[in-house]
């Protein structure tokens, strides 16, 4: 018989090929438990991904509106043309106001109807137009941070016929806080579920190791290193996690596409807040990599508990 040359410690490519083949075969043989592990990863990453998607769309909306630093002066429904002209004259003199537009009650109603088409039937049933006239004012960016300016423009509230003055940048700041909250909620919920998924994978791998304990014993007796013994199990966890991540992205894209079809109106608020665009490729890669990482941690947790042999 020919003698075997043993390159101590080396792992040739055929060993890696064997790892891959074995890992895929073991996933296939333990279909049910593998499905459970993959589902856990997919669900947790889907939740995390959904939060990221909402936050990203909100972020895009904020970016779109950020360049238009705007204040709005709302009049009473009963405001007279003289009162409106007086406010117009005041605004025309102010150095920090770049332009202004008067939005009549009819224009406000038409705008609402185009943004919320599904509510048109209800609006048409109203006896009276509920929208007040308003001035939309573009503010010079240098004035946005100024409290004196805010106080000054806010003082318009005291003029006759003026009901309220709102600043868009305050609203944007609130939206930013909401984005942070959605991000945090996604991270917490997704993180907790990802940890649970990693433990599920750990238990699945532990079960697989029990099933293969006789093979492991034989491998040890013929001189297999721990790396060769553990390799297919680690790879099994990594594959489960990666598949789970890919499934999560697929489900997310399907949900995104369906929601987009249902909303159908690019001008609507729902569209711009939720479905104006899908996740960036970096976030897609990060989600799948998160699944891979959870799978790796799960399998590592189970194989690091050395089976049987005395030290």
């Amino acid at each position, binding site marked *: *018989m*020919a*003698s*075997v040359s*043993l*390159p*101590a410690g*080396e*792992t*040739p490519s*055929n*060993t890696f*090929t*064997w790892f891959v083949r074995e890992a895929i075969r073991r996933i296939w043989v333990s279909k049910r438990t593998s499905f459970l592990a993959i589902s856990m990863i997919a669900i947790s990453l889907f939740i995390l991904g959904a939060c990221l998607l909402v936050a990203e769309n909100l972020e895009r909306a904020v970016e779109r509106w950020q360049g238009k630093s705007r204040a709005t002066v709302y009049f009473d429904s009963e405001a007279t043309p003289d009162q409106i002209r007086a406010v117009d004259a005041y605004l025309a003199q102010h150095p920090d106001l770049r332009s202004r537009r008067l939005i009549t009650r009819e224009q406000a109603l038409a705008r609402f109807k185009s943004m919320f088409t599904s509510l048109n039937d209800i609006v048409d049933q109203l006896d009276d137009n509920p929208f007040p006239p308003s001035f939309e004012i573009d503010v010079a960016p240098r004035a946005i941070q100024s409290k004196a300016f805010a106080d000054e423009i806010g003082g318009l509230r005291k003029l006759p016929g003026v009901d309220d003055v709102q600043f868009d940048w305050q609203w944007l700041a609130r939206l930013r806080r909401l984005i942070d909250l959605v991000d945090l909620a996604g991270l917490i919920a997704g993180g907790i579920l990802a940890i649970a998924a990693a433990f599920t994978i750990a238990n699945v791998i532990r079960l697989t190791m029990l099933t293969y304990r*006789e*093979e492991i*014993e*034989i*491998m*040890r*007796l*013929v*001189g*297999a*290193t*721990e790396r*060769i013994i553990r390799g297919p199990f680690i790879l099994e966890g990594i594959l489960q996690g990666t598949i789970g991540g890919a499934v999560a992205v697929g489900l997310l894209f399907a949900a995104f596409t369906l929601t987009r079809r249902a909303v159908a109106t690019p001008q609507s608020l729902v569209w711009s807040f939720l479905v104006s665009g899908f996740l960036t490729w970096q976030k897609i890669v990060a989600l799948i990599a998160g699944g891979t990482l959870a799978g790796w941690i799960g399998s590592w947790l189970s194989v690091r508990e050395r089976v049987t*042999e*005395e*030290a």
Partner: protein
Amino acid sequence: MIHFYHVTKRFDRYSTALHDVTFHIEKGEFVFLTGASGAGKSTLLKLILRQIRPTDGQVVVNGRNLNAMKRSQIPMFRRELGFVFQDFKLIERMTVFENLAFILTVLNVPAREHKKRAYQALRAVDLHHKLSAYPLQLSGGEQQRVAVARALINDPLVLIADEPTGNLDPDLTREIMQIFVNANLHGSTVLLATHDRDLIRDSGRRTITLDAGRVIEEKMPTVERATRSEALFGIG
């Protein structure tokens, strides 16, 4: 090749599996290890395989002191050994070829050599026509021959067998013994644990007898090494 120096193995306070065992097996010897059930044969084999460590004393195999061996060195050490068990320990889901190729993969042998090496090993036990069969499609004797082929595929310095003929009839026992003797003639040191007294008596080989964890008898060979086995097992 295998040296035991005052080896004691206790599993707990009340159970001593081996007590002050000392013996030496030289390179190229063919030695039987015998004794009743519970005499300590399996414990002794586990010590040689470095599955367990002695409580007292030293075990030296092929110049390596197993007490001082690091865990990371065990795999390389075991690649110098081959073993055969009474229950064959073949992987049922794999074909005969895959059972052997699996070992070659573990031993880092390139995949392109697997077929050739497996064929050679199976030819030595006259089972080269069963490459594609599954273990459960083979008879007990054939399964044991596959297990022996697997043990010999790496040309082991030491071949260890634990009751390899325990489940086999006399004809199959003779077949398996022929293979062991052949391996011994090719240079492997053989240590074979059995309680088949007829087999030991007819072989005329050196025999170490254990009883209650102690060596109670050491019988030296009564005949020349190769010639006697050729006559007994019909190898020429």
